[in-house]
């Protein structure tokens, strides 16, 4: 079992060593010799589309395994875990927010969050209380909980996605272009909420976007094309 939230977080949350990934044998999409992320950091990963952003995030969340090299998350070597162990690790320690389609459309908002809590093995009885308080912090009315996810506006859905990602108090929050479907005002509001909630939760934030303008409030910005030595333009 990986250590829980309550214990002191390791200094280094994420550590990549000689990681290489390719879909076919010919050309690597990702090639990162060495990369570390400190705990509690809010990191802006900048990259134009086609530089391997999504692939990198899939590697970091354990959805994909690198062709070689090792990925360590929270002192756990992700690359030596089995598929189901990685799935469990993700459920317990990583929150994910996608570009869009973050919710299961036919479930209610409450059920979407409950489902994440279920996979995160939250034992606490007060999931509903936590959900309500998260929703309040996200400035959303509680009545939305009973509505179907697809009856919400895109902006509301993206905010629910933050609540869904944070319900298990993950150490790491991975966010992928979450504002691309939002207008400027909604996007600004979203970014504010995301940064303050991830900070309040002590999560390390890995935020990926092609949009420089969003980088303002982050601790650090990393350019993905510089990080990634694979000079391909694969998806």
């Amino acid at each position, binding site marked *: 079992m990986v250590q829980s939230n309550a214990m002191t977080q390791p200094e280094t949350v994420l550590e990549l060593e000689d990681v290489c990934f390719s*879909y076919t044998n010919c050309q690597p999409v990702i090639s990162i010799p060495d990369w570390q992320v400190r705990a509690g950091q809010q990191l802006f990963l900048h990259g134009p589309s086609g530089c391997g952003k*999504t*692939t990198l995030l*899939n590697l970091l*969340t354990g*959805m*994909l395994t690198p062709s070689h090299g090792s990925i360590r998350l929270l002192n756990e070597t992700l690359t030596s875990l089995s*598929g*189901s162990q990685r*799935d*469990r690790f*993700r*459920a*317990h320690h990583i929150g*994910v927010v*996608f*570009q*869009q*389609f*973050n*919710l*299961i*459309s*036919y*479930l209610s908002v409450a*059920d979407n969050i409950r*489902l*994440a809590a*279920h*996979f*995160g*093995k939250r034992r606490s009885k007060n999931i509903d209380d936590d959900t309500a308080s998260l929703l309040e912090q996200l400035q959303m009315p509680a009545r939305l909980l009973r509505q179907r996810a697809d009856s919400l506006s895109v902006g509301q859905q993206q905010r629910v996605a933050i609540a*869904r990602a944070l319900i298990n108090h993950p150490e790491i929050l991975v966010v*992928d272009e979450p504002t691309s479907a939002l207008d400027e005002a909604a996007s600004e509001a979203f970014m504010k909420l995301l940064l303050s909630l991830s900070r309040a939760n002590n999560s390390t934030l890995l935020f990926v976007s092609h949009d420089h303008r969003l980088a303002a409030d982050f601790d650090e910005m990393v350019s993905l094309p510089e990080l990634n030595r694979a000079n391909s333009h694969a*998806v």
Partner: protein
Amino acid sequence: MKWLACRNLTGRIAMLFKVALQSLLNRRMTVLLTVLSIAISIFVLLGVEHVRKEARESFGRTVSGVDLIVGARTSQLNLLLYSVFRIGNATNNITWQSYQTLAANKAVAWAIPISLGDSHRGYRVMGTSKDYFRHFRYGSQSPLVFDSGQAFDAVFDVVLGAEVAKKLNYKIGQQLVLSHGLGKTSFTKHDDKPFHVVGILEATGTPVDQTLHVSLAGIEAIHIDWQNGVQRPGMKISAEQALQHDLTPKSITAFMLGLNSKMATFRLQRAINDYRYEPLVAILPGVALAELWQMMSTMEKVLLLVSLLVLLASLIGMATMLLASMRERYPEISVLRAIGARPWFIFTLVELEALLISVAGIAVALSALTLSVAQLQDYLGEHYGLFISRDFYSADVGFLLLLVLIATFTIALIPAINAYRRSVGTNSNS
């Protein structure tokens, strides 16, 4: 710790069911149509199976203890059908003389004459003798039992089958009028010579229930002023006058024989088939039934095959529906994966949805079958002498339903494996 794991498991199953049900409800139109198509195919499968089994049972129990049935020369099936099942018509009558001669044969223990051709509100009338109530057997050697009253005595007495009395609400002592011919709405009625109900038989689950029994003299009496199937004009003979006439029948339709020894059956059969004064045929009911089954078994196999193919078609339809829905479900799959669902969860979700559809189809089919068997019971009994029981639950049905579920699981592997592969592969959410 153990109870915690247990609670976890039930929690997981509850969650899986909830997601599957909501997902199906979300696509309720296509799911409903799929459920209907599966329900129809299961309905056909179970219906065919039930009627097939019940038909055998019902036909098999209709006559027992009768060694030979004798009628005018025709195919043995035709004779069996009209004499026992009241289906179809006799090609010809046989003379009273022949009947008497053959009934007096040393080998014969008892003989029951049968005279058909009249009806009462769609139910057939059978002229016979009192020996019918004494010797006729059905099922496993069960004799006919009177629910009330007794056998006919007078010329214008009638004994009703259970169904006739119940459906037409007749009681002992009531009067009824027979019609000429077999139509339900016959215009030629023997209304000048009404009959009195003197007995009502207990239900047998055989065509006996749908028969009105009168004496041969009664049949003779109502036709005394008729010739070639029409009433002779200006020749009306009243019921009282008819009693003065000689009411010995000149001909009957067929007769059943019980023999002293089974050993004599074939010898007597040959003798009857070679009867010199009239073209007759004698059949063994068991042999004729076997011939019927042989004819029907090919038909049964074809029906079963067709219903299995229909089932297969609708299961493939379901797989197609699930597979087609996969494209729009990829975002859903990647969300589930992102929050930590394992590929097996996705696989199980799709399989569970398929099984829920099939279970719903089975439920619809069983209720429809229960309703329609209850509805069809009377109709089949009345028109085809086919008595099917309402109770169609049996080990065979359980086996067939299990087969349906296994087939569902197997065919749903196609979309389920597709979803599984999808969830193991990359996770691009758009």
